């Protein structure tokens, strides 16, 4: 579904991705973990073309990511942002139907019906007409996920979806993501939630310094890591004090 081969990228001469290769099979969940500045978010942003990679090949559904293919690829991939990025001048419902109506050209009536179903699915039926500033962070992020689903994407990219949330709001968002995973959605998730990665991911990729240090099943990477660097990172994340 998503395949990266030898992807490299520099910002002003400073390498941020060094030879990154991995794949996300259709219907699976891959969690990207690692310290901040490891290049996890940059990987995600290269996949849907918010950043341009300097070398290597990224393929989505067998189609290479290029300037020409981006419009098509962006319709197949949805993205959920760390800071939600809801449009402040549109209601929850308005945010959800924005893409379907204006990008995909679907009818507004049909899109509204589908948006209401999606809001029910993320537990926000009664918030359809609220503006983002009237919603809590957790609610905004669930609208963000509903907005992603409204595009009927083949895969969803999650960029630290719970990092900007109050601790007690994290669970409601992770629950929605867990449900999605169980329904077979293809997901590439940048996260610091190790329990989520352990329980939901099919594969975990650990990155540091712009490179993949190790990748494998959650049991192996999180339970019995091979690399010293992975062990140090996990030790620090799991035992912060």
């Amino acid at each position, binding site marked *: 579904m998503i395949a990266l081969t030898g992807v490299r990228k520099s910002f002003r001469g400073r390498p941020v991705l060094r030879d990154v290769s991995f794949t996300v099979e259709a219907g699976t969940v891959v969690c990207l973990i690692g310290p901040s500045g490891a290049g996890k978010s940059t990987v995600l942003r290269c996949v849907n073309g918010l950043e341009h990679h300097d070398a290597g090949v990224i393929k989505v559904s067998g189609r290479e990511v290029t300037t020409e293919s981006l419009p098509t690829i962006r319709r197949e991939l949805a993205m959920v*942002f760390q800071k939600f*990025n809801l449009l*402040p*001048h549109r209601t929850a419902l308005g945010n959800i139907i*924005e*893409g379907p109506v204006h990008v995909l050209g679907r009818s507004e009536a049909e899109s509204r019906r589908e948006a209401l179903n999606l809001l029910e699915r993320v537990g926000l039926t009664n918030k359809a007409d609220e503006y983002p500033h009237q919603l809590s962070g957790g609610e905004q992020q669930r609208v963000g996920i509903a907005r992603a689903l409204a595009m009927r994407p083949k895969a969803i990219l999650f960029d630290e979806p719970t990092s900007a949330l109050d601790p007690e709001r994290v669970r409601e968002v992770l629950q929605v993501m867990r449900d999605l995973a169980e329904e077979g959605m293809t997901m590439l998730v940048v996260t610091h939630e190790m329990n989520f990665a352990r329980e939901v991911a099919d594969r975990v990729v650990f990155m540091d310094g712009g490179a993949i240090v190790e990748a494998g099943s959650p049991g192996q990477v999180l339970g019995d890591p091979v690399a010293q660097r992975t062990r140090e990172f996990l030790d620090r994340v799991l035992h912060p004090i």
Partner: protein
Amino acid sequence: MSADSFFHEAVLFMPVLLKGLGMTVLLTLAALATSVVVGLGWALMGASRFAPLRAGSAIVINFIRGIPIIVQLFYVYFVLPELGINLEPFVAGVIGLGLAYSVYQAENFRGGFKSVDRSLVETGQSLGMSDWLIMRRIIFPLGIRVALPSFGNTTVMLLKDSSIASTITIAELTRAGQLLAISTFKNGTVYTLVALLYLIASLPLARTVRVLERRLSQQ
């Protein structure tokens, strides 16, 4: 100028001055519409990802901004006829003031567009929106809210600068006052009334902008 004679003269002069005020309002609204449309054009060129368009916008803005409005009006009204383009005074006034003010409107729009968070542009991109759709659905509606206060200022300035059109024979408020003053020698009464009428005309403008601002910020 006693109070008594002031009111007496005011009643006499008012019909002429009110007619002038009507022309001032008409001229201001027409020039405002022109300046907003043309200014939006400059701002959209300036926001383009196509470098020649951006450069063109910057050149035009600096060019127009660097020339006094009265000289621009003279150019449209006195020089264009030499090139075979004869314009009615009112049309020349609307074009001259509209063009002169288009660059201020462009700067208002530009400031508004720039205030829109980059992450919302990326949101539009990740939804598969084209640049134009992102402008229409995200940058414009959000930027306009930020631009509105300076838009109000610009409009009040335009109302006052419409007095410059008196120099190309448009019978607006200042011109009407000038003619009255010359023929009656009642400078004090006439120009006090002219000043009051400009002031009165500018108040509803400021108010309209405030109401709009409040309505938009509620969303």
